[in-house]
């Protein structure tokens, strides 16, 4: 068993993220009882951050636009709760990475009758009322959705999941797509639905949906995508699917 004195020497390894997991967990427990260690970790992290900042370079220009586009669909956490640098849970769920390519979207997805658009409008309205913090965003989305629905070549495709269903609405002339969820399986804490365009078997992130009923305008152009997929991902979304798709909707 590790002694307290031994544990104290781990402040350096912990601050540098150099503790492998069983020891890291043990040390985190120790930190809750050791204010001196906590203080030391903070100071060593400040020193390490200086080492990090010494590597400053110009970030590639494309990242800014992607980040700014991404924040619109990332739900912000409330102030109360763990600081992510404490590694108390925000980072604990290591993401299992699946292959970047999906099996071609297939076509086994059962295509049912499209959800009536009247029902969709009701769902959107309901969401707007319920999630006040998203009201502006949703209103914009609703407007964008309405615009999409007026496209002369608008088409829909629906598939079922559990006792619910998802519908993708798209228009090649507008280059846009939207997704409507109706009573999809409930999301557990810390999870969201993430949408993907299927570019010939490669998944391209297309936005997040934080509820099992609602709608979202897909981010990015339809381009040559042959389908839209939906996976369950950790809050904040992933850059690649980390779970198998719940829904696969062919475009066309």
């Amino acid at each position: 068993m590790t002694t307290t004195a031994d544990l104290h020497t781990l402040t350096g390894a912990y601050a540098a993220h150099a503790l492998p997991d069983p020891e890291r967990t043990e040390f985190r427990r120790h930190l809750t009882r050791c204010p001196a260690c906590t203080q030391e970790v903070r100071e060593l992290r400040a020193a390490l951050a200086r080492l990090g900042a010494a590597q400053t370079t110009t970030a590639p220009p494309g990242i800014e636009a992607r980040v700014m586009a991404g924040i619109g669909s990332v739900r912000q956490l409330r102030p109360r709760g763990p600081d992510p640098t404490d590694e108390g849970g925000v980072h604990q769920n290591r993401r299992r990475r699946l292959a970047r390519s999906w099996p071609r979207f297939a076509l086994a997805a059962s295509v049912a009758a499209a959800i009536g658009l009247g029902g969709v409008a009701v769902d959107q309205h309901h969401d707007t009322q319920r999630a006040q913090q998203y009201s502006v965003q949703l209103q914009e989305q609703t407007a964008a959705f309405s615009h999409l629905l007026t496209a002369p070549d608008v088409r829909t495709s629906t598939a079922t999941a559990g006792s619910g269903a998802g519908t993708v609405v798209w228009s090649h002339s507008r280059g846009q797509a939207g997704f409507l969820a109706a009573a999809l399986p409930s999301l557990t804490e810390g999870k969201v639905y993430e949408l993907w365009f299927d570019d010939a078997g490669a998944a391209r992130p297309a936005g997040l949906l934080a509820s099992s009923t609602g709608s979202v305008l897909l981010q990015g152009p339809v381009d040559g995508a042959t389908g839209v997929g939906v996976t369950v991902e950790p809050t904040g979304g992933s850059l690649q699917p980390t779970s198998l798709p719940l829904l696969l909707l062919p475009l066309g």
Partner: protein
Amino acid sequence: MNGTARFAGEQHRGPDLVELLALSAFGDHDAFRRLYLTVAGPVFGLVRRVLRDHAQSEEVTQEVMLEVWRTAARYRPERGEVMTWILTLAHRRAVDRVRSAQAATDRDRRAAAQAQATAYDDVAEQVEHRLEQEQVRRCLASLTELQRESVTLAYYRGHTYREAAEMLGAPLGTIKTRLRDGLIRLRDCLGVGS
């Protein structure tokens, strides 16, 4: 503009990162963009240092910034500076990425560790030459060789202290203490902490 990453600037010049982060926590996109412009260079630089892969570094930088947006309200000023908080998140993400890639090639790991040990001298040199801040360079140079190697392998290369011990051919206990002693010395040399 945002090229320099001196932390003293956080109090004396440039945008107030605490304020920008607080505004971001309330969903202010403009404030977050300004925060991004200030921290993106340090974040990308550190992540690329650890990952040594441009495309992956872009991905991880993007993930880190989305995480900053998501968790902005959880930042506590009394625990440290904004830049430290963000670079700690960035380092964690970069290290996670390195380790998941390592896990995928687990069976090649021993061979890789050997190769890395041989290549180590090069890396240490690169690090020292590329450091932009004279003070950091000077402080790193003031460490003993084993302290500096331990710190470099752990922080810039994302190795666990066990891997560092294996690569340096030193006992685990030695690396643990050298890592801590080295960081304490850096802290004092850089004048951070209370």
